[in-house]
């Protein structure tokens, strides 16, 4: 066995996420996030050894392997460039691939970035290409996930208001995050609960928006962290887990891959009791009900206990286990970037740089992403102190 190099996050940047960035090219969009991360780290393009980029399906922008065209904008010319695609979890997976380059001592300082410019096409189209011989029954992701939400409600007896509580909380959190896409200043719980049912039991206000956006991070080794002008966040554990899309015995409500991924991260980080030892979570919640579902899947609550944590206010910004302080995917969803935003927001928290949505004293925060048919998971736990194991 080898001795892994500790990985520090010393630069974080994201775009102001909106429905359509008509003022920039795809290159301009990713550049903005990358430049902000470099500025945050007080580094230049010349300091970057390699670039690892991720996004969801190429059809979303209609550019095959767009990293080829983006090499110039990301200062990658003459450097290694890797392109990751693991469906919705890709933003998280991309960061983990970049982290391996540092942990494996291949490179000292790596730029990692994920993006989606959804306004170039229409995700509904990209997800629903007219494949012959398949019966078209649905379009978009909401209808795919709604039956699993119903199954969760049936399994746990959760009252049907829990989803609206999550949406109301995340939208209010987003008001404290200048980068969030949705800033619904007049949001009320009543409005969320009165919004139309799209895919019953999922209401309109309980779904994520379509965003243009990018997120970037600078990952570096101990030497790089020592030079960092601002306190770094340290990676204490990171893992990916995958299971098949559909299979006999699959638990869509609480997939085994998610449980295993979290267990691996906790093992690496020496976490025995996540509910007590982890201060906050940025989790991938594209539909509000996934907050209680993931609380259970990630071991913050026993089976059937997730909704009770949400309902009791534990996951509020001032609660005991804040979840999605940034407003989450429910407030911002540049699909390919959404996972990396979770990872980056977790790092912002332990660096004490989250601004108005900062959780006081956040020392260990989990970033979580998932994708495909609830089958691809990527997570990292970051801390304010370097790893001791």
């Amino acid at each position, binding site marked *: 066995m080898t001795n892994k190099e500790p990985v520090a996050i010393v630069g974080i940047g994201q775009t102001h996420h909106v429905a359509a960035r008509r003022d920039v090219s795809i290159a301009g969009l990713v550049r903005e996030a990358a430049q902000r991360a470099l500025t945050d780290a007080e580094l230049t393009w010349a300091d970057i050894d390699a670039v690892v980029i991720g996004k969801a399906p190429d059809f979303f922008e209609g550019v095959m392997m767009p990293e080829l065209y983006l090499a110039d904008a990301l200062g990658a010319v003459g450097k290694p460039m890797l392109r990751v695609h693991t469906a919705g979890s890709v933003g998280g997976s991309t960061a983990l691939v970049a982290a391996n380059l540092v942990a494996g001592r291949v490179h000292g300082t790596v730029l990692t970035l994920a993006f989606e410019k959804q306004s170039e096409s229409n995700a509904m189209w990209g997800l629903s290409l007219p494949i012959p011989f398949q019966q078209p029954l649905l379009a978009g992701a909401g209808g795919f996930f709604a039956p699993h939400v119903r*199954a969760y409600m049936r399994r746990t007896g959760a009252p049907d208001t829990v989803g609206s509580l999550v949406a109301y909380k995340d939208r209010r959190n987003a008001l404290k995050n200048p980068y969030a896409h949705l800033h619904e200043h007049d949001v009320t719980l009543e409005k969320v609960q009165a919004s139309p049912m799209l895919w019953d039991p999922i209401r309109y206000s309980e779904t994520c928006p379509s965003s243009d956006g990018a997120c970037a991070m600078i990952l570096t080794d101990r030497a790089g962290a020592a030079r960092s002008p601002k306190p770094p966040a340290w990676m204490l554990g990171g893992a990916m887990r995958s299971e098949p899309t559909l299979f006999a015995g699959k638990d869509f409500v609480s997939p085994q891959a998610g449980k295993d991924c979290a267990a691996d991260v906790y093992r690496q980080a020496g976490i025995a009791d996540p509910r007590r030892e982890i201060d906050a979570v940025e989790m991938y919640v594209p539909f509000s009900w996934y907050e209680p579902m993931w609380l259970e899947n990630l071991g913050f609550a026993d089976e059937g206990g997730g909704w009770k944590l949400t309902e009791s206010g534990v996951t509020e910004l001032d609660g005991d286990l804040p979840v999605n302080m940034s407003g989450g995917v429910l407030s911002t969803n540049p699909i390919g970037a959404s996972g990396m935003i979770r990872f980056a927001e977790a790092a912002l928290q332990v660096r004490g740089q989250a601004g108005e949505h900062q959780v006081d004293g956040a020392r260990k925060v989990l970033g979580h992403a998932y994708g495909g048919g609830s089958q691809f998971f990527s997570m990292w736990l970051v801390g304010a102190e370097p790893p001791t194991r």
Partner: protein
Amino acid sequence: MAVAPQPDILKAPLVVEFPFTRSLGPVQAAFLSGLRHRTVLGVRTTDDRVLVPPVEYDPVTAAEIRDLVEVGDTGTVTTWAWNPAPRRGQPLDTPFAWVLVKLDGADTALLHALDATGPDAVHSGLRVRVRWAAERTGAITDIACFEPDDSTPEQIRPAPHTGEFEDGVTGIVAAARLDYTYSPGGAQSRYINALADNRTVGERCPSCRKVYVPPRGACPTCGVATTEQVEVGPAGTVTTYCIVNVKAKNLDIELPYVYAHIALDGADLALHGRIGGIPYDQVRMGLRVEPVWTEGGRYPDHYRPTGEPDADYDTYKELI
């Protein structure tokens, strides 16, 4: 239990087509707006080279570059390739040369088409001139192509340009169509062919013995081929569902409707279908349903209640 026969292989066209809306950013917007006005812009790098077409970021230093300059519409071919059989979407529909052209005043070359009489009329070093499209919209196709020209190279230092034009564009619509022939492969062909006889035929994993419906060629947990065919259903149990209130494009189903996961009797996982023959708000988990086939339909049109008592939750909870 029959071993799967070699199926008639299914194939069908798959057209992937979309008009992508691309926002340009300042440099590309200036260049394409300029083309509309028969003006070719480049961008000057920090080390004083002129890139045409202009890009937003220096390919060498990664610096953001914004200093636009105007270059000539004549230039020199740096390399070429004769295209005897133009393809869909290419600039000319008669044989032409692909060329990289270094326009006068530029240090880099632009890719486009050259209208020439034949390969013998083309060589590197050939002088060429832009042939402007009659109708220009602010797109790279505003250059219809290049044509041979007898001008002499000009040693000019390109003059700065504001990049501002009347009726400037900020975006393009890039329509793209690709044609594929889709074939779903062996297992799915067997499944689809059986559906034509109104039978739902799954396949059993030789290792874990689970029955997959529809079969996808591999048992996803064991990673081995499924081969033994097993007819399942026709009836099954609704394991979970949602009520769809969102109209999907190209999908002619009246709203609201119920989209359900249905575990057919004998199958080890649920397939997806629409529930009909019952008010949408009376559908429930555990409802027993059966397929309703329509003439010529490849799939059951929908599933309707059988009238049996609902299945007990414990009998299907592992299939959710």
